[in-house]
């Protein structure tokens, strides 16, 4: 197939053309600084307000509770560090999970160096957080629970409502990293008991370089970037107007197409999973079989390594990702795959495919055919497979 088959939408998505179009006037036509007084600048202020309202509505929140950041990572950093600082006098204990994104885990490590204690809760074999362990971990000094909405590698959706209830019962703050879920799953912060939520535009058809943190009204949180009075004085820096506008447009489109996108992704996902599991032996699906993002699949192919698999798929014009050590830049494979109990060598052979509404059944079938060929080729090269066959 000549055309590129893009199956890495959890890494980033294509910016929708309508989003780009909505952004364009805000570079060279309506370029005023939203903080200026004149009429010309007020158009920019209005554009930001509109985008903020779209996002607030999407969450069932109020627009004064949405703060734009430069990324989902910044929102995660802000939520953790600034909450920790603000509630330090109450206690220095935070609870999170073992399968968070590095934006959370590395921020937790930073806080540990600064005297905070972090408890990392286990997940089961499907990647679902152990709620009993979570509740037991709560101490008088606990100030915050941070658990992701849906996992970026294996797609498993967490019991957010239950975590929200636990947090409420113990009068704790609850933050969720919803970078993979926002614009893909229905999220209502009131119903789910979420106090803070991080998201990013480029995972839902918006531009890279813009995110937000939802902070429930009344929550004490320090400013993370100091300077001007932008974002109600909580996040200084001249607003990135075109990107904020693009974010708003992307959310609007994501919501209006949510049901049909989910339906299409689900059909493709189920077809993909069924074919791969039926046609390629010694393969497992990582993550929960059904309670997962509609666009996520993650397989482990025994006896082979993920990076070589990715390069061979790339040669066939298929873009995918893996949790092998060689793709993570460290010696260990993905912490998420290890947390669900996979042995190292199985974790090394993982393949993540994340779909979009633009993928077709033809692309999926082509991809499965190629995966079959490539896995077969790599197994023929594998001394692990050789040993396995000899022992049988």
């Amino acid at each position, binding site marked *: 197939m000549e055309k590129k088959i893009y199956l890495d939408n959890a890494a980033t998505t294509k910016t929708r053309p309508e989003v780009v179009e909505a952004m364009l006037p805000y570079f060279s036509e309506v370029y005023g600084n939203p903080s200026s007084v004149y009429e010309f600048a007020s158009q920019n202020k209005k554009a930001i307000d509109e985008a903020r309202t779209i996002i607030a509505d999407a969450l069932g929140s109020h627009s004064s509770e949405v703060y734009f950041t430069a990324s989902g990572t910044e929102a995660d950093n802000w939520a953790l560090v600034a909450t920790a600082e603000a509630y330090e006098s109450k206690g220095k204990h935070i609870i999170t999970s073992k399968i968070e994104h590095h934006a959370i885990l590395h921020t937790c490590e930073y806080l540990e160096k600064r005297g905070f204690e972090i408890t990392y809760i286990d997940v089961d074999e499907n990647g679902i957080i152990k709620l009993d362990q979570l509740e037991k971990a709560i101490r008088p000094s606990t100030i915050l629970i941070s658990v992701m909405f849906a996992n970026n590698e294996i797609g498993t959706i967490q019991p957010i409502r239950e975590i929200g209830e636990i947090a409420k019962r113990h009068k704790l703050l609850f933050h969720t990293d919803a970078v993979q879920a926002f614009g893909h799953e229905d999220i209502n912060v009131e119903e789910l008991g979420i106090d803070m939520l991080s998201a990013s535009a480029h995972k839902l058809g918006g531009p890279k370089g813009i995110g937000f943190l939802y902070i429930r009204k009344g929550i004490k949180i320090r400013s993370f970037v100091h300077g001007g009075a932008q974002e109600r004085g909580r996040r200084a820096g001249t607003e990135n107007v075109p990107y904020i506008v693009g974010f708003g447009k992307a959310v609007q489109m994501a919501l209006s197409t949510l049901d049909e996108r989910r339906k299409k992704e689900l059909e493709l996902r189920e077809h993909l999973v069924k074919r791969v599991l039926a046609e390629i032996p*010694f393969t497992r699906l990582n993550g929960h079989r059904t309670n997962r993002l509609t666009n996520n699949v993650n397989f482990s192919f*025994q*006896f*082979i*390594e993920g*990076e*070589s698999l990715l*390069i*061979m798929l790339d*040669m066939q014009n298929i873009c995918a990702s893996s949790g*092998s*050590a*060689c793709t993570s*830049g460290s*010696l260990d*494979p993905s912490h998420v795959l290890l947390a669900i109990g996979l*042995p*190292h*060598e*199985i974790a*090394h052979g993982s393949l993540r495919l994340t779909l979009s509404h633009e993928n077709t059944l033809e692309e999926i079938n082509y991809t499965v055919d190629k995966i079959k060929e490539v896995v077969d080729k790599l197994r*023929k*090269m*594998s*001394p*692990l*497979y*050789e*040993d*396995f066959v000899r*022992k049988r």
Partner: protein
Amino acid sequence: MYTKKVMDHFSNPRNMGELENPSGVGTVGNAKCGDIMRMYLDIDDDGIIQDVKFKTFGCGAAIATSSVATELVKGKTVQEALEVTNKAVVEALDGLPPVKVHCSLLAEQAIHAALWDYAEKNGIKIEGLKKPKNDVHDHEEDVAESY
């Protein structure tokens, strides 16, 4: 990320496979780290490597270094094969990304492990060859049963 040579050896690996009744076979690396290399050598009575095959579980660089290493030792004497260093492997591939240099070391060790096996089987001593420390056979059990 990879040079043309690496990509070439990765997509068209040379001497990939197994040898029946090899003069020596060596396996290095471990599945936990994501790299295992196995080298088979067929050495004639004059001590010349007549044939060589490899099998590798690992990344693109691991496969390419194994492939190029087989080319570097084929037709050589045992002593010459012993002198194939990881540096020679990297050079033959026009370079490797820094994080992948360990793959070339593994290729060197795989050759040494196969030569060691050959020496042991034939009760001979190869000048300058040390017992390879990185043999995978200890790990085999947990690899096969851990799934």
